[in-house]
């Protein structure tokens, strides 16, 4: 009898063994492109002076504007903890928050403040970040963008670009009294500073790789010239004033050269490289058509540019060594212009014409050259990549007025920057 039991037991065990092998494996092949729910709890501030700046609101706005986060409304917060120890995770999870940020702002005296913040994963209660940033009152805005950057990077694995700047041209008034301004602002459009003002057109701002200088085209002497301006001091110098056209400056990756478009005596436009140290000019293209809007590759070995040598404007690439033959990159559609290379060089953004409108498109440079049109406006032009490559800023028109807009590099998120007065044109996103 006992023998029979042990026999049964042995068979039972065997079945249990095989059961462990049968452990279910489920394959997930799709995901949602949803925004990640996050709560930025208002930071506590012991003094009214500190409270006059709302760190949490700025962080929350940054994350929401990126389109990758859905931030929880303050009136939906049943409590407002300021440290991790005070968080009731179950409650926050019930409100569908995946992550939350808590923090405090403390005055240190002499106009200095400490921002302390922590990032938590509500789902598994893990503390992901804990930092303290010290800033003076004007620096609180930048410090808040830095908080948003850290949160963004921790959750998405992409460096945040909230604490960066943009440059753009703002045009006020109407002819004959137009007012052109070159403006540098925070990436969220706030904190704008006029760095150059003129009654003649200003065009094509371009950031130096170190973010300290801007090159741009100014018609201040009625003729186009290229200037380089040192932002800290406002000191500027004219670097190119050739006869005819001087336009579309682009910094080489080492910051020592500018690629630009110059015209020969017969009015033919070609790409040149100007050595800023020696003033030496090197001609890169030589074609009867228009070659313009150059952009450097990261290694400085080639230039992407627009040319109408085949009829309509298309994008080409050419080596910076003389004598290299340009190679055409775009073949879809009759209009592809203004190439901009993504920071990791995996994508090329440009303006394409579709259904009679101008739109921002990207081309995959690593795979089969797939083209994706990202925007749906009628006049979406002048794309410029954020330094993290996640977004593209561009100029658009809203009810007849020039505005700035953002689209994520994969096209799934679109935002509009709240603009101040004026026609906004030619945005250029600064490096980190």
């Amino acid at each position: 009898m006992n023998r029979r039991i042990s026999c049964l037991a042995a068979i039972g065990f065997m079945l249990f063994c095989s059961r462990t092998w049968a452990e279910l494996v489920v394959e997930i092949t799709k995901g949602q492109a949803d925004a990640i729910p996050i709560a930025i709890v208002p930071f506590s501030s012991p003094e009214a002076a500190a409270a006059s700046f709302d760190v949490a609101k700025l962080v929350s706005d940054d994350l929401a504007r990126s389109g990758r986060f859905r931030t929880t409304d303050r009136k939906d917060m049943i409590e407002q903890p300021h440290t991790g120890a005070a968080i009731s995770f179950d409650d926050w999870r019930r409100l569908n928050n995946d992550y939350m940020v808590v923090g405090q702002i403390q005055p240190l005296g002499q106009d200095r403040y400490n921002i302390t913040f922590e990032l938590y994963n509500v789902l598994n209660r893990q503390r992901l970040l804990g930092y303290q940033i010290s800033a003076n009152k004007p620096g609180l805005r930048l410090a808040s963008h830095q908080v948003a950057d850290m949160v963004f990077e921790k959750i998405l694995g992409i460096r945040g670009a909230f604490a960066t700047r943009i440059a753009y041209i703002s045009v006020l008034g109407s002819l004959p009294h137009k007012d052109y301004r070159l403006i540098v602002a925070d990436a969220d459009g706030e904190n704008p500073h006029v760095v150059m003002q003129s009654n003649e057109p200003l065009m094509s701002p371009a950031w130096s790789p170190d973010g300290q200088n801007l090159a741009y085209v100014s018609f201040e002497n009625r003729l186009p010239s290229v200037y380089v301006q040192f932002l800290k001091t406002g000191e500027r110098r004219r670097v190119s004033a050739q006869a005819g056209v001087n336009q579309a400056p682009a910094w080489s990756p080492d910051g020592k050269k500018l690629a630009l478009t110059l015209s020969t005596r017969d009015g033919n436009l070609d790409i040149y490289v100007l050595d800023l140290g020696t003033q030496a000019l090197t001609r890169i293209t030589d074609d009867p058509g228009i070659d313009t809007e150059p952009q450097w590759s990261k290694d400085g070995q080639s230039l992407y540019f627009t040319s109408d040598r085949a009829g309509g404007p298309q994008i080409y690439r050419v080596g910076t060594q003389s004598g290299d033959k340009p190679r055409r990159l775009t073949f879809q559609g009759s209009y592809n212009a203004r190439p901009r290379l993504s920071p990791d060089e995996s994508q090329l953004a440009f303006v394409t014409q579709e259904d009679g409108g101008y739109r921002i498109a990207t081309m995959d440079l690593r795979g089969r050259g797939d083209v994706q049109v990202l925007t749906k406006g009628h006049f979406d032009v002048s794309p410029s990549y954020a330094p993290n490559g996640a977004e593209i800023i561009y100029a658009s028109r809203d009810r007849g007025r020039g505005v700035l807009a953002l689209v994520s590099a994969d096209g799934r998120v679109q935002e509009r920057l709240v603009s101040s007065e004026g026609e906004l044109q030619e945005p250029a996103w600064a490096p980190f």
Partner: protein
Amino acid sequence: MRDFLREHSWAVVVSVLLHGLLVAGLVFLALNSAHRPPPSLQPLPIDAVVVDSQVLHAAQRAQAERAEQEAARARAAAEAQAAAAAKAEAAAADETRAAEEAKTAEQAKEVEQAKAAEQAKAAEQAKEAEQAKAAEEAKAAQQAKAAEQAKAAAAEQQRLIDAKKAAEAKQAAEAKQAAEAKQAAEAKQAADAKRAADERARQDREAELRRQLADEEHRRAVESGPLRDSYIARLRNRIQNAWIKPPSASVGLDCLVEVTQIPGGEVTGARVTQCNGDAAARQSIENAVYRASPLPDPPDPALFERNFVFRFKPNE
């Protein structure tokens, strides 16, 4: 038959050995084929075995507890019976004592009566001393007779008492014997009960194992059927809808996450094991599992799995 065996003894031995080998071989094959080849993923055999052995332990524990309870019951009954016997004995002793006391009291009464009679006689003698001298002898005779009568009565009384005592002693002995017999009988009954309990426990154990086997068979039947496919499809949908893909998670990502759920579908653990993605991808995957909690109920309870492995392999 015996002749046949003697004539073919070698052949018989060889044949028996061959059959033995054949049976052993078949059993070996059967055992081996019962194991399915391991999938590419190394699952958590330890976890699952722990879970299963707990089930087994629980069953065994329950049986042991049942047997123990039976034994305790038998023990309690035997104790109660022993207590009853002791009480009966004590009652018998009480009775004996009471009888003896009664006897002593009676004796004292007799003595007193006799004394009273003597006193009466003395009084009579004093009173009747002056009476007829002739009656003196008769009186003396009468007195002697009365004394004799009193003595006889006392003797009779003593005899009765002795008889009663003997009877009582006999009764006590009988009661004691009866109690002993009863105790023995009860002990035997308790032993029988224990044997019966053991047998029941053994049967329960066997039934439990059979039930587990039947469950297992049922389970295997459902597992290979369309119900399992539909369950997997529901799980996949649920998790896919909960996964917020980070930008870094694109074609080429391939991650395994081990999931633990409890009945009702609540996720109690999610841990990415093998993964070629970055920290953000890993986190998004673990979060997807938590966000999908509670997981859908299986269409058949036999399909419930405490431990899952989800494979995240985006194809777009």
